[in-house]
């Protein structure tokens, strides 16, 4: 049956239901586009034949192919759109700089989309109140205390806190830090929030 390649793209994402971004399947997309091209050309020639030679019996076949073309378009668009939703999530989870391993999974146009999204979001957040705006990608959970106990899961180097003090985030070291300074590092898996 037609459109098997296209639905394979969809399955590929559906299997990773937690939102991870698999490598961009350029080859899969290319194959779908090739099938579409073939279907379209066959239909073009059958439409001509039906018109010039009055072969109305071709109409069901033309319709069959047309349905397949629409299906291919839908699967491809849904594949790409779902990837955007995943890429969007990365901005919220990782911050505006993505690890190289993830960037490798994106095609050039996706990187471009991500950069634009980043820019739009930054413009929006800057527009909120005061001079600095408001970073709404922080404060994801309601605060319970000002300072929290954190353990360092990997070497991260020097880190400046509010009052200008600089501390060294060394693997396995434990610190008592202002919560709002740590949030992103915790999300990125550099620090771990310790609750006794």
């Amino acid at each position, binding site marked *: 049956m037609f459109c098997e390649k296209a639905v394979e793209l969809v399955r590929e994402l559906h299997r990773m239901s937690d939102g991870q971004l698999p490598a961009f399947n350029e080859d899969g*997309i290319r194959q779908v*586009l090739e099938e*579409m*091209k073939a279907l*379209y050309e066959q239909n073009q020639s059958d439409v001509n034949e039906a018109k010039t030679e009055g072969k109305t019996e071709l109409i069901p076949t033309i319709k069959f192919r047309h349905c397949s*073309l*629409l299906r291919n*378009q839908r699967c*491809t*668009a849904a594949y*790409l*759109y779902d990837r*955007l939703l995943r890429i*969007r999530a990365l901005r919220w989870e990782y911050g505006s700089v993505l690890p190289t391993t993830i960037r490798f999974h994106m*095609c050039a*146009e*996706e990187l*471009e*989309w991500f950069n*634009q*999204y980043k820019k*739009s*979001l930054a*413009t*929006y957040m800057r*527009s*909120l*109140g*005061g001079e600095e705006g*408001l*970073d*709404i990608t*922080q*404060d994801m*959970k*309601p*605060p319970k*205390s*000002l300072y929290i106990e954190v353990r360092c899961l990997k070497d991260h180097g020097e880190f400046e806190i509010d009052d200008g003090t600089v501390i060294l985030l060394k693997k396995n070291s434990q610190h008592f830090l202002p*919560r*709002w300074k740590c949030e992103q590092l915790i999300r990125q898996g550099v620090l771990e929030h310790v609750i006794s």
Partner: protein
Amino acid sequence: MADALSEASDLSGGEESQEEDVLTPAELIARLEEAWLNEKFSPELLENKSELVECVMEQLTHMEENLQRVRKGDLKASVHRMEIDRIRFVLSSYLRSRLQKIEKFFPHVLEKEKSRADGDPSFLSPEEFAFAKEYLANTEVYLKAVALKHMPPNLQSVDMLKAVPEPCLDSFVFLRVKERQENILVEPETDEQREYVVDLEEGSQHLMRYRTIAPLVASGAVQLI
């Protein structure tokens, strides 16, 4: 929360408080919390509350400034710091909910904005409007560049209004009644049922379809919880 807040504004001294604004800081935060919960639980994007957001942002800046003046190590300072953090959380969470819905429903949100009559209030703040427009353009450019432009001529575009789902207004929401309502028409759920009317007593809580009470959320007569 309210106590520490009014104290915070006391610290600032009376002369700096805005003359036109009749809201006390505590009322301001109560308004923010209402807007936050409504936005969090309603399936569709609600009317924007730019003014409220601005006021809260000013309040936060204000409190931050006051905090600078408080002696270090003062117990008061950490109470106020906590207060600031909590307000900032509610504000961020509120704006986040809105942005999430804008991203989820962008073609519909923009369509609604386009068809809005001149005098009607806008659902989007100017900044949200700009964001939504960029989001749409960015997404369309992307789909076109990666795949659509390589497709047969009649398939090179996707109607985003049809492709992106609309908010589901039939979903159920919990609500608390702030102002008594009479004769609310409830649609039947099954073929055997008939439609019926209910009165909503002040202070009572209900589980209903959002569509039924959407106007009451907008007017502030009920609070989503």
